[in-house]
């Protein structure tokens, strides 16, 4: 029986500290494996107890009392205690904190240690999703003793201990024999970073890696499926892939033009061409696997004639020259080429500019929002609220939607919440704020003898704690 595993991932983390850098690649390596939070995401996206075995909420919804697991130790042998929780949360919300998701902690008024196994967190206003927030990778619990070297020598409480990092190649971790919970089933796990899709394919084929998480080349999946040596796991992510339009400036400040774009897009063709058939079409900014999802794809069905008519109605000069900025992921680059060809067919001439992430962040996402069109997948869970921010790069400023969202935080009734969410989805779809393309799939290729891998990606994680080999 094999007791070790090599997992391939596309992106290498810049460092191994999930609490002070945005890179999702860090979470992918360390989340749940090395670091744990008070709560944790399950494979289906549910929020489960983590280092807090349970919690109580005060009636006014302002105070959370977390009851911590007992006997947990950090990998350096120090005990896990309530003071570590207070340290971690206070550090994350401090003024000089460099936590990339500082907003998760914005609602915290104070953190108090009751006894070594109990912590209370007081909020400034009620927040039903606080346990959800505490499950994020940016909210994991770290220890003050090891905080200085965390970037290269992460010390957590997880089922795996960090062993070594060959920069540019791999991170290795070994089983934590003193783990407080269900121990890991593998003795050791190596995560190898292979950014190039071809190399990823070759590595899986040649057996250099036993599994590859978020396999980057969907075109190769049929080959793996046909090969009995491998299994292919298709799940879903929280990533709504959209054709973002800059609502803040011409020509996309004109709803008719946006609607024209929406009707020019042929979702099945994009999913076929860019994703080789993997991916679920969406008609609004919401994950289809969510129970509150409404299928609004018919609002923006493929109808080039209508699109042309709308452009004429909008009175824009054709061909309409616009800029399409594409970040590196292949869904964006390939999807962009297809979308561009489809737009050209109705008279919109996008000029494609491929950019690096840094440039995309700089020019499109921030600052002057100097872009017309871009393709991107928003992978944070439950993030429809970004459309309520008029400063966001969509430059979408709709008071009706903004009010709806702010009301939502106050409402705790599930049915009412559901209604409001559906309403929000409809507003976005009817305003044609963005072109809604598809939900990004999660594709994992693995040796057929491996079990326990996550199929879905409710958060960016490669949780290996349950992974094992079968004969």
């Amino acid at each position: 029986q094999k007791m070790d595993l090599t997992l391939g991932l596309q992106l290498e983390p810049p460092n191994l500290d999930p609490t002070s850098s945005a890179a999702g690649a860090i979470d992918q390596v360390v989340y749940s494996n090395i670091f744990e939070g008070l709560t944790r995401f399950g494979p289906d996206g549910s929020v489960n107890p983590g280092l807090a075995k349970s919690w109580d909420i005060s009636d006014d919804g302002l105070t959370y009392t977390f009851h911590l697991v007992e006997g947990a130790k950090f990998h350096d042998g120090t005990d896990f205690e309530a003071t570590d929780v207070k340290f971690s949360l206070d550090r994350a919300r401090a003024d000089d904190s460099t936590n990339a998701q500082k907003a998760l902690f914005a609602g915290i008024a104070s953190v108090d240690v009751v006894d070594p196994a109990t912590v209370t967190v007081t909020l400034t206003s009620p927040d039903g999703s606080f346990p959800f927030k505490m499950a994020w990778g940016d909210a994991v619990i770290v220890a003050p003793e090891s905080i200085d070297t965390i970037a290269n020598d992460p010390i957590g409480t997880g089922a795996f201990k960090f062993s070594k990092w060959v920069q540019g190649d791999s991170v290795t971790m070994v089983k934590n024999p003193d783990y407080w919970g269900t121990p890991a089933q593998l003795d050791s796990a190596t995560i190898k970073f292979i950014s190039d899709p071809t190399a990823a394919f070759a590595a899986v084929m040649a057996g250099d890696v036993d599994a590859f998480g978020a396999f980057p080349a969907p075109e190769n999946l049929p080959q793996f499926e046909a090969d009995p040596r491998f299994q292919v796991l298709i799940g879903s992510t929280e990533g709504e892939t959209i054709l973002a339009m800059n609502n803040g400036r011409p020509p996309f400040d004109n709803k008719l033009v946006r609607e024209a774009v929406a009707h020019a897009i042929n979702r099945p063709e994009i999913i076929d061409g860019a994703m080789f058939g993997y991916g679920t079409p969406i008609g609004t900014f919401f994950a289809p696997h969510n129970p509150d999802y409404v299928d609004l794809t018919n609002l923006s069905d493929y109808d080039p004639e209508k699109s042309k008519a709308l452009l004429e109605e909008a009175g824009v000069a054709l061909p309409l020259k616009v800029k399409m900025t594409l970040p590196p992921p292949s869904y964006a680059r390939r999807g962009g080429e297809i979308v561009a060809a489809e737009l050209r067919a109705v008279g919109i001439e996008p000029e494609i500019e491929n950019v690096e992430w840094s440039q995309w962040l700089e020019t499109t996402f921030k600052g002057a929002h100097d872009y017309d069109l871009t393709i991107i997948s928003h992978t944070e869970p439950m993030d429809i609220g970004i459309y309520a921010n008029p400063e966001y790069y969509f430059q979408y400023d709709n008071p009706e939607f903004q009010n709806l969202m702010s009301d939502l935080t106050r409402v705790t009734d599930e049915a009412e919440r559901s209604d409001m969410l559906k309403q929000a989805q409809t507003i976005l779809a009817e305003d044609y704020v963005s072109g809604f393309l598809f939900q990004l799939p999660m594709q994992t290729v693995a040796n057929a003898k491996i079990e326990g891998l996550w199929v879905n990606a409710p958060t960016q994680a490669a949780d290996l704690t349950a992974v094992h080999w079968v004969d």
Partner: protein
Amino acid sequence: MLRYTLTRLTSLILSLVAASVVIFAAIEVLPGDPASVMLGVNAQEDTLAALRTELGLDQAPAERYVTWVSGMVHGDFGVSYTYRTPVAQMIVDRLQVSLPLALYALALTVLIAFPVGIWAASRRGSVADVSVMGLTQLGVAVPNFWFAMLMVLVFAINLQWFSAGGFAGWSEGPLLAIKSLTLPAIALALPQASILARVMRSALLDTLSEDFIRTARAKGLTRRQALWRHALRNAMIPVLTIIGMQFSFLLAGGIIIENVFYLPGLGRLIFQAISARDLIVVESVVMLLVFAVVMVNFLVELAYAFVDPRLRVRR
């Protein structure tokens, strides 16, 4: 000989200083803010400012240049913005892949090119010469990344003789490490070997037509003896020049091949660093490569003097 060395050394240092200014200035104009890359989409302005201060990005450019250069002179290349580790350490790690790879490829290049070039030159105009030179023409023309792709397809995916890429590290035993560098080294070496073989051949043919070869033949040396004893060493100057250029090329030019075989070498480091706007890493690695090129040229020039007594200063 000492004077020759000193003169060369002075111009070497001057080139390095000029290069450092150029590199620093060039990096300054790179758009992109490392802090925002590190903190991602949801970072807040005060967080960014805190990070910029931490990284020293709020200092004036001249100040940063001086800090950078004086650090380098003391062996301190600064701390990577994204990896948060000393750049020197990263470079040392990456060099453990890139340097052996370059040397391996260079060794292959020389081992292929010398025999082929000499063989072809000694049979000038024969069918063997023409066909070998035809092959080298192909070798020069083939894009090395394409060749690498084909090799991965054949040797890693179909035949599974080699792994498709990656580098296990020297700790896993030198044999394994050498094995994982073999395909990349071949991909790098083949076009270079073709070039070198052609240079070797034409340099040899040039010297073979020199008067002193005729003198040697008149002494009673056979054609072969004249080639080995007289022509070869005289043909070394152009060959050395090319070898020097090739080494620099192999060290830096692995950038694409390292990507094809996902080797954690300098090339890939710089690629990642550029896209992450990890300026300090980019600066230092480029500087290092320039240093390597200049050093190699320096050594090649010393080698000229070693080969050619005319270049040694008269006693």
